[in-house]
């Protein structure tokens, strides 16, 4: 079965991102497919490469990057939500006149249509948020 996943909250602040991660791993382990993971609202903060969590804690951003690489997952950060919150890739940084970007490897920035599409194309949409 094909799952679409929406994540609404930032890493560490809220458990939503953790629960989504464990759900997705369990789904993949059981032979299911993940159509797309869409990061919306504060969820866009999952996609910054500037986090430096304490050594004795999980590294949520790296965990997404590694899972995406291993399973060829599509990690999409909403562009409108990202602009408001300061998440940018090289193109976005340039377009908005910023001197640097901060997106983490494995994530791409795109529009809200990608969320609608995830709902339509997946067998089930699950939302993890506050």
């Amino acid at each position: 079965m094909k799952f679409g996943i929406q994540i609404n909250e930032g890493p560490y602040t809220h458990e939503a991102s953790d629960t989504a991660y464990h759900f997705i791993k369990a789904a993949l382990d059981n032979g299911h497919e993940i159509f797309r993971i869409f990061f919306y609202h504060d969820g866009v903060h999952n996609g910054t490469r500037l986090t430096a969590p304490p050594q004795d804690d999980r590294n949520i951003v790296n965990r997404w990057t590694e899972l995406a690489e291993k399973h060829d997952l599509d990690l999409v950060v909403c562009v409108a939500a990202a602009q408001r919150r300061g998440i940018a890739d090289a193109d976005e940084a340039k377009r908005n006149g910023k001197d640097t970007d901060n997106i983490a490897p494995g994530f791409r920035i795109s529009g809200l249509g990608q969320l609608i599409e995830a709902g339509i194309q997946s067998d089930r949409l699950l939302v993890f948020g506050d």
Partner: protein
Amino acid sequence: MSVTKKLMYINRRAPYGTIYAWESLEVVLIGAAFEQDVSMAFIDDGIYQLLKGQDTNDIGMKNFSPTYSALGDFEVTQIFVEKESLEARGLALDDLMHLTYEDEDEDYAEKDSIKVVSSSELADIMEQQDVLYNF
């Protein structure tokens, strides 16, 4: 994309205190381009999104409430408001913005978009959906 699905956007948050109401409305506007069978549900404090006369001047935030009136033009014409949530807040349909659309099947007659439904009716409608978006 050839599939047509029944999509419902569920709104349970008050506006302005947090951005969820506004950012979920942005999803609905973008979603209109996909020509699916869409509807919106307003439950609990989500109903406050539809109150008349919002004026954000003093708090310096963007007043996004006029956007709800544009939903009809985006062919979002099915807006369900839960009766029990209205009543718990001492509100009536008349306290909400008057949202309408032009029905192209009936010579573009103006019709009301908002339907007040009971919890039990709304539960039935939710059960008919293919996808439930939550924010």
